[in-house]
């Protein structure tokens, strides 16, 4: 039996229609080939904004003290090891 190209082609066409619809709707839409999350992409821009926001949050002191503790545990006498 040959494969049914008709059905696949229809599905494909449907997908393409949807994609081009999406692309047309998004002003910042870019081709798959270029950087899809680059500064020209709306999603890419929002993603960076979201993440920069998180990265710039104040860091709780517990992390600095944790690292100091870890360091102190190791440095004074190296005789004992787990």
């Amino acid at each position, binding site marked *: 039996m040959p494969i049914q190209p008709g059905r696949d082609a229809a599905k494909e066409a449907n997908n393409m229609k949807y994609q081009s619809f*999406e692309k047309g*709707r*998004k002003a910042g839409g870019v081709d*798959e080939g270029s950087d*899809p*999350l680059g500064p020209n*992409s*709306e*999603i*890419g821009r*929002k*993603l*960076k*904004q*979201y*993440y920069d*926001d*998180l*990265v*710039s*949050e104040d*860091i*709780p002191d*517990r*992390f*600095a003290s*944790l*690292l*100091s503790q*870890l*360091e102190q545990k*190791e*440095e004074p006498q190296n005789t004992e090891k787990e």
Partner: protein
Amino acid sequence: MSNTPNFREALLAAVPVLRAFALSLSKNADRADDLVQETLVKAWDKQSSFQPGTNLKAWLFTILRNEFYSQMRKRKREVEDTDGSITASLSIHPSQDGSSDLNDFRKALARLPEDQREAIILIGANGFSYEEAAEICGCAVGTIKSRVSRARTRLQEILSIEGEGEFGPDPIAAQVTSAAGVA
């Protein structure tokens, strides 16, 4: 003699970005901080296995991610209310800057499947290469590419749909409506 001062400083410098990654994965501030803490302890213990000159950030992200998934597996047996946990997670950042645009994005991101969310965060927000992201996630480069692409498509869908409900009754109702619309 160990190179601990440098290592400690390098770890400390990585905390903000580790925390951002942890928050993106777990969507819960307390759990994210625990995740970062656990990552720092593990990284410290394993520091001899880190090869200087290689990408420390990628190494740390790998540890954090492994820790996240092992905690998830443990929790999965206990927690069944996934909807409840998602709802709770949406309130961690109560409109810090009043930007509803950014809040919409957070909510949309929270609705992505874990694998897609982490892929788009690694590539789009952290600037890892597809190869690095694949190594961090322990999967094929092609898998990362397709996850990123699906994540992007899904975010576009969610955001454009929720945009229509911008002046709707209330956020929860809009959330439910748009979730139904997407399904």
